């Protein structure tokens, strides 16, 4: 896809209700945070449940580690195992996939496909030689802000225990 003009306008905004914008000049410290391993976790959230759950966690001010990088997808059924491998290839220390609870899918049964497909992800990681604990599949509904924060916390701790992803360049 090509564009004649590829320019982007960037706006950083804070509403009155939010904290001070975090995008102020703070030096960039790569990879470690006060000497501690600082994991990078790729997280997929479905638009309807988990993303809303993450929003709720935000509105409720449930604190969790700044390790996750959330990508919003329309449905967890969109996630192919290739995306997870892609995340590892790009250097994620862990991949967390979240969707609506079974039976609750906005798209009837997209998450059932996810469930069936993701059964095979752990063995797949195993054969590639990645610790299967680096991947997790969770169901988080829009009302489970607390659960969202807990899962992120727990998963970050797991990854911290495992250490940085071995295959990172």
């Amino acid at each position, binding site marked *: 896809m090509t564009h004649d003009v590829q320019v982007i306008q960037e706006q950083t905004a804070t509403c009155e209700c939010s904290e001070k914008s975090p995008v102020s000049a703070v030096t960039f410290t790569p990879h470690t945070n006060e000497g501690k391993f600082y994991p*990078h976790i790729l997280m997929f959230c479905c638009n309807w449940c988990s993303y809303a759950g993450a929003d709720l966690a935000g509105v409720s001010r449930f604190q969790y580690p700044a390790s996750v990088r959330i*990508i919003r997808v329309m449905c967890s059924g969109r996630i192919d195992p290739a995306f997870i491998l892609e995340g590892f290839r790009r250097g994620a220390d862990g991949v967390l996939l979240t969707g609506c609870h079974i039976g609750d899918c906005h798209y009837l049964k997209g998450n059932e496909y996810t469930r069936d497909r993701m059964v095979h992800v752990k063995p797949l990681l195993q054969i590639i030689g990645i610790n299967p604990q680096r991947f997790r599949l969770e169901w988080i509904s829009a009302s489970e802000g607390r659960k969202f924060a807990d899962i992120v916390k727990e998963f970050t701790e797991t990854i911290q225990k495992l250490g940085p992803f071995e295959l990172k360049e």
Partner: protein
Amino acid sequence: MLEVNRDPRVKLHTLTEVKKVSGQVGDFKLEVLHNPKYVTDKCNGCLACVDTCPAWGIDAYNERFSPRKAIYKAFTQAVPAKVVIDMVDCVRCGTCIKKCEQKAINLDEQPTTEILNVGTIIVATGWDEYKPPKGFLGYGVYDNVVTQMEFERLLAPNGPYFGHFARPSDNKVPKSVLFVQCVGSRDINKNPYCSAGVCCMVSVKNSKLIKQENSEIDVAVAYIDMRCAGKMYEEYFRDAREYGVRFIPSSVTRIKERKDKSLEVVLDINEPVKQIFDLVILSCAIVPSTTANNINQVLSLQMTPDGFFKEYHARLNPIDAQVPGIAFAGVSQGPKSIAESIMQARGAATSLGTIMHKGSFKLEMIKAIVNRDRCSRCGLCVTACPYNAIILEPDGIARVNDVLCRGCGTCAAICPSTCIDLRNNRADQYQVVIDKLFEEESPA
């Protein structure tokens, strides 16, 4: 009801079932099956045939309390005001044919199929009363244990007792009546939900009606908590108490019949207390109509675990279905009172009326698109699509129906040829995000 019949723009299809639905918003095709009425439209509702008919059946309208003829009109005010024949009860003697001046009776009528072509659909499949299993609190075993809907008939002026209610075992006016709340609802083993307080209000209403009819009768309501949330509802509840209805916070676990057919009820008020009642009414849960499931099979909509239809959004859009062009009205979407049903019905009418009035439906095209050059014609996406939005063209290439597709992307994840993807949610767009998220240093 009569108004509907008089309006020339409304076509009534009674004794009709929806067998198949195809198409999409703007152009649905409904295949409907007209079951035979055995009486043509010439019937003028004179009921002469009913008098002559020698065969009897059970009146479904009056629950099980009275008989009716094999040829019958459902009830006095039925719409359309014509008779029908129940072939289960009919003995095919032909008496009615001779009697009918309009020559409206045809015992050999066959079911017919018709295709209705419409722009939108409203699902208003309604509800059924939860029927307790036989023997539960004596229901189905003891004559004087009835459900709330059955009691409505006992009480009704057009019911078996013509408005002067009696108990079914001996047709005598009971001296004491007990309503038992939350039968089959708020119970994770039966139906976990509360029927939105409707059964509470019905019990309040009926207990009050009994007291108005005969203040001598002792009326009690055994409840877990009374859910009278609504405009004027609390006042209505207070009214009932002023009439002298006893509201007992207690759950009923056991009912035993005594020799005189009165019932010994064990109420748990701090400690078990036995009390005698002549009639026990079970306030049963509202459950989705049995037809809802059949309808859903032809419409393939989404249902919540309790079997009610799932709305687009519980808060922001409780009327429309997730499929465009379909809306819900009434209890099909969840337990509600008459007022709420009407509210939703009018909402559904407005929602769909807006689309139809405009004559066109606007689609955001975040939909699956097929790269025709790369499609291997395997058909995997067809089976994966939850909305049946993908079909294979005659040459085998997948084609997405933009109206049915809702843009979940399940097809994109399953495609072995990587040829189907979601507009503006493409794999390369995700990949670039994954790539950039974990880039170590800033490129600048």
